């Protein structure tokens, strides 16, 4: 298997954007191509649901033509809300296998022009049909997880609120973030209840945005050191544990095994905090903290920009925003910027970064390790 390197990383600001999905993806893609200074030999595109959100199908060819790359083989990858990470994995495999030397991976989503109930309905199709027929939405399933975690004493309501406060504080320093304003503990804990015990400020926003990465077989110094995928039952009710995600645990094991090092080398992490409690539970699933210890580390300030292990320096899904298929790519863009000293205003000191992406309610998750070796 060949080593895979990152030659360029770019993204648009996330948020409520007036541009089309195609233009958002083109903005990210063209910037990555300019930075890389080389033409891709293959294109991997991802959008979770362009058919419903913007009415476009045959999306790999659509974007190939829009980007002026119709002469290059293109595929579209989709694994619900982790589609960006899955697209990276496909690009990684194309290069590691020797099929291609330079692969452009671009992910995007455009949703804010669609009404919120409609967006919720489209997104909730990632849920098991029995569970969905009872009105289960993504926040509802996350609330069921959070309720079980609260009952087990793995997290407290204060811990959940502090995740949002920390990530907004980071987002306030990130010009690419959807929300660039801090929130207070009181604001989070008194925000509107969405799905008890989850409040509005525990949940990520609906965002537009795009991100792109150019992967290459030529050593660049920034190595895609390991990638792992993990899966679980679509139905949450089938799982042995409601409070730990097998898909994350398996993804982390596979990624660390490929990289040849363990969690102790990770110095910065982008975690899928679509719902605040997921940040704490995921840190334990990945192995960055022993079971039951992540909440304590958060309380001690270990996860802030100045802490021992900065988590979500970008602001995470909560503040940077969650443009579905763009998110998994944007997490890696943030890691590249952090490892190469380009994360202005929120720079941490790190040479190994980890990105974690959750697809659906943890049915198809990914862990990606990026290492700066030169």
């Amino acid at each position, binding site marked *: 298997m060949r080593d895979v390197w990152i030659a360029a990383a770019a993204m648009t600001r996330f948020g409520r954007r007036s541009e089309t999905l195609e233009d958002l993806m083109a903005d990210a893609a063209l910037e990555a191509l300019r930075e890389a200074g080389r033409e891709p030999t293959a294109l991997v595109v991802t959008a979770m649901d362009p058919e419903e959100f913007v009415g476009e199908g045959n999306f790999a060819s659509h974007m190939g033509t829009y980007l002026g790359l119709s002469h290059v083989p293109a595929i579209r990858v989709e694994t619900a809300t982790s589609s960006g990470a899955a697209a990276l994995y496909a690009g990684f495999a194309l290069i590691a296998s020797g099929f291609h030397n330079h692969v452009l991976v671009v992910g995007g989503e455009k949703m804010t022009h669609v009404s919120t*109930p409609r967006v*919720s*309905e489209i997104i*909730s199709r990632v849920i098991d049909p*029995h*569970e969905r*027929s*009872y*009105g*289960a*939405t993504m*926040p*509802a399933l996350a*609330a*069921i*997880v959070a*309720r*079980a975690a609260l*009952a087990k004493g793995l997290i407290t309501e204060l811990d959940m609120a502090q995740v949002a406060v920390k990530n907004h504080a980071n987002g306030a320093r990130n010009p690419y973030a959807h929300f660039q304003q801090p929130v207070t503990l009181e604001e989070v804990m008194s925000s*509107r*209840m*969405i*799905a*008890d*015990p*989850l409040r509005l400020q525990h949940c990520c926003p609906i965002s537009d945005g795009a991100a792109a990465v150019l992967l290459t077989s030529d050593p660049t110094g920034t190595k895609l050191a390991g990638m792992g995928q993990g899966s679980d*039952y679509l*139905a*949450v*009710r*089938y799982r042995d544990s*409601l409070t730990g995600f097998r898909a994350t645990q398996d993804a982390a094991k596979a990624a660390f095994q490929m990289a040849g090092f363990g969690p102790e080398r990770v110095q910065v992490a982008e975690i899928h905090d679509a719902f605040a409690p997921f940040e704490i539970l995921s840190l334990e699933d990945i192995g960055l903290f022993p079971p039951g210890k992540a909440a304590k580390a958060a309380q001690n300030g270990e996860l802030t920009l100045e802490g021992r292990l900065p988590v979500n320096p970008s602001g995470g899904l909560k503040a940077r925003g969650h443009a579905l298929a763009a998110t998994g790519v944007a997490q890696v863009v943030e890691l590249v910027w952090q490892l190469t000293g380009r994360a202005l205003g929120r720079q941490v000191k790190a040479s190994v970064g980890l990105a974690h992406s959750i697809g659906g309610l943890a049915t198809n998750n990914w862990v990606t390790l990026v290492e700066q070796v030169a």
Partner: protein
Amino acid sequence: MEMVAASRCPDCGWVVAPPVRICPRHPVEMTPVEIAGYGSVLSYTTLTAVPEGFKPPLHIAVVELPGGARIFCHGKETRQLKIGRRVVIEQVDGIFYFAHLGLADRVTMFWKRRGAAPQRTTGAVKSAVKRFLSVYKNPPSGTAPPAENGTRSNEEEQNHRPAEKS
């Protein structure tokens, strides 16, 4: 006692509800079974932001039935609910409801489901009739389901009664 349709894997013995064709653990065709409609609450939530077709507040619980199968169900409220609390399951028009409820609660609860007003009213009436018949058929033994007072073998018989025999 309400029976819940489920399926059992002939290889690993796993029971899931509602029934599915293939065992989610491995590609083996499952056998239909019925399990007793009571169990304990694994987790729950109350939605204030509900999807299209539902009215807030929407109460959802995940209940583990005897033998380990879990189902999603609706309820009148979650205020007094606790994880581990034992509830009975009732099925009306193919929809599961938890708890032991009075008629007024039922009317409110059915009002929250999707569908036109006459259908909702019919649902509430069906539920009331069903409860009356079940009390008539199974003389009251308090709120506890029969198996709770029974022996273990009784319970197992109830858990995995093959559908064709019932």
